[in-house]
């Protein structure tokens, strides 16, 4: 009594598109939504640095690194600029990993591996070659495919997690405007510090003086005041007008 493999033309078509479509779709994703150039931000930072506006240079360098965390020259320049401003250089494991391997590439490779292995798994189940077989080679192949499926998707998730754009949506840089006198004299001097206040009022008590160029986490916004968290975990209110989002396409704080 011989079994007939339940393969139909329709099913083969679906598998074919699945195998071919994964890399194509992933490539199409990497090709779309292009809106800015990290090199332009880097060149802008050099111009700001030459003009003596180190906080603005640090913002442009941070933006360049959000777009391309592997841009080594931007990392060096940012380190130098922050050192001149006597600000610490933030460094987490995500940033370190992203500076070595481009998150987009990691995500792409993980996606291709994960979904290809998933497609092969479907084929294996579709052909029903496992339940009735006693051949150890097929079982080894089966477990290898399962392993690749899990590892591929895990790599894909890792690429997303270390992507600086994921966190940059909530990050702002303290960049107060030059005062009126400095602006009239065309000097880029900005106030050295900005008060972090306990409540959203000018008369509120000052919790700390935040140095210009500090990177903060924006927790919420209420009109002209923003509630932020500093790198040391201190939370308080600053004027929204003195903040610049790391991602410029987001609505500007006012």
């Amino acid at each position: 009594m011989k079994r007939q493999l339940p393969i139909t033309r329709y099913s083969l078509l679906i598998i074919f598109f699945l195998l071919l479509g994964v890399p194509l779709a992933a490539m199409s994703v990497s090709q779309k939504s292009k809106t800015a150039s990290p090199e332009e931000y880097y060149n802008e930072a050099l111009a700001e640095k030459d003009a003596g506006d180190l906080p603005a240079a640090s913002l442009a360098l941070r933006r360049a690194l959000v777009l391309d965390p592997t841009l080594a020259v931007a990392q060096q320049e940012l380190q130098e600029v922050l050192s001149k401003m006597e600000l610490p250089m933030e460094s987490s494991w995500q940033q370190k990993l992203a500076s070595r391997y481009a998150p987009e590439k990691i995500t792409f490779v993980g996606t291709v591996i994960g979904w290809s292995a998933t497609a092969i798994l479907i084929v294996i189940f579709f052909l029903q070659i496992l339940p009735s077989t006693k051949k150890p080679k097929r079982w080894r192949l089966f477990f290898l495919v399962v392993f690749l499926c899990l590892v591929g998707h895990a790599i894909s998730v890792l690429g997303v997690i270390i992507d600086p754009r994921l966190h940059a949506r909530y990050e702002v840089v303290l960049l107060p405007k030059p005062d009126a006198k400095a602006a009239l004299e065309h000097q880029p001097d900005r106030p050295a510090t900005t008060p972090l206040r306990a409540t959203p009022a000018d008369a509120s008590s000052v919790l700390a003086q935040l140095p210009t160029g500090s990177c903060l986490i924006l927790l919420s916004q209420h009109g002209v005041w923003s509630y932020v968290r500093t790198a040391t975990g201190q939370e308080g209110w600053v004027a929204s007008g003195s903040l610049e989002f790391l991602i410029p396409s987001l609505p500007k704080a006012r």
Partner: protein
Amino acid sequence: MKYSLFILLLFSNICFASSPSVNATATLSRNRVAAGEVVQLDVKVTGAEQADVPPEIAAEGLQIKLTGQSSQVQMINFQVSSSVIYSYIVVPLKTGNLTVPPVTVRAEGRMMKTTPLQLAVIGSGSASPNAPSQQVSPMNPGSATLPSRLANQPSNNVDPGRLGFAEVVIPKKKFYVGEVVPVEIRFYVDAHYGFSTMGPPNFGGEGVLTDRFKDPEQSRENRNNLIYTVATFRTLFAAVKTGVLDIPPATLDIAVAIPEPTPVGIDPDLFSRLMGGRSPLVRQHKMTLKTSATHCEVMPLPSEGRPADFSGAIGQFRLEGSVAPQKVDQGDPVTLSLKLSGQGNFQALKGPQLTETQGWRTYPPADHFEATDVFGWRGVKTFDTTMIAQQAVTATPGSSFSYFDPIATKYVTLKTKPLPLEISNATPAPTPTAGAPSAAGGATASPSPAAPKLVAGERLNQKTERSWKDPLHQKEWVLTWLAFFFGSVVLIGIFAVRAYSQRARSPLDQERQRLEELIAELEKEELSIAEFYDKAATAAELFLKQGVADVADLEEILRRRDEIHYGARMTFLTAPEKERLIKQLKKVMGNE
């Protein structure tokens, strides 16, 4: 209502106290000194726990260097005040009326300046008229010291003189100015009595800088056939002026629990058991334990042989260097780690100076200290300097560190050699010692043919486009991912349903399943002969229906079934015969 008002007042008091004003003041330990003597300058910042002060203060005729800091927090009538004192050592370089300039202090986001101070430096040998005289305690070292207040109190048969005493242990009484000396202060309390400390010990005085006390270590010790509980406090101290140094007695306020007699009518044993074996009633005796005064001789650092890069390090040190990574691309940062190990004034230690830094861009080093003893006197301080090669180099910078060795009584300079590095895309650097012309007649080495590397500071001409959105926020990405996910789920579901339905609808599969069940039932021992042959005959009929067996193979089973049902003869079924029939059916089933 009364309590509410009280709590409101208390809260408002605390709130008021939590926002103190910040100010900074500077004081000199003496305003008139002889040439060769040093003065201590204290910059006190009140209303802040931390402040930024310059490590050195430039002043004409004076050398002023930061030597340490101490902080204190006080709470008086619910008003909390904190202050931090930065101590400088002031060395006059000439005689005359000199001015200590205003010190710029940055605290709580405010910039402040202290008032300038006048210091009169007179010729060598003249005594300072307003130098404070030290009161030497008449107590003998190691003797018990109790305050007169406690001595006047009735003590309920407890001898206050035997309650406790204190002693201070300083390993040497003759040392150099700025040299850090470990000190151990032991407070002994009769082990029969419990006690609690009321704050840290008070130790130090004019001309002495002390570090913060570490947490005390508690132990038991037998002295004169009496067991004492010993609280040992350890710290480091340094002298900031030369000459005879009288350190006032160290004191510690404690509260001793003195047992009280049990009230009349109460069984003391029962009461004691109820209290967990402790004395039922105790009275708190506040007292102050006090050591004897300490006399030391502080010597000035010798001026001859003082290296130019000497920055105040006193002790015994070793210097080691390492670099990581050892193989980098040009433009990548490397970290040069310089480890200073040994014993001495680690807190005021400045890092080694880098030498031969040509071709390198260096950044201020980050340092961290790991103590290897309880004092923080011995340990390892590591200075990590991040550097980026600006040109083709084959080695890191070297380093140099000078200190004064108080045992050898001389200055010592430690050096590390440049460490070799492998930098890819770099042209081989010319050897500094190579004075002879090269084999190519002095021609410079040709540049590497590798592709040009991006160099920091230069404009970038190429332009790549990237999205501001991360994958999770890209619509294309999310839709593609979800499409694949649901597609896979749907495919798996379709195949699973299809396989199940195929298996359920096939009559062949159904009959096969029925045969498997029948053969399994035949192997059961509890079946009667009639039941066995009935089931065996059913299986045989199914086989004949499928056409997988001949009638001749299964005729015996069908005949015996009929004999049992319709014949009058008794029929037996032996175990071998049963086994043979089951085997026969299985064989037929295997022929499928």
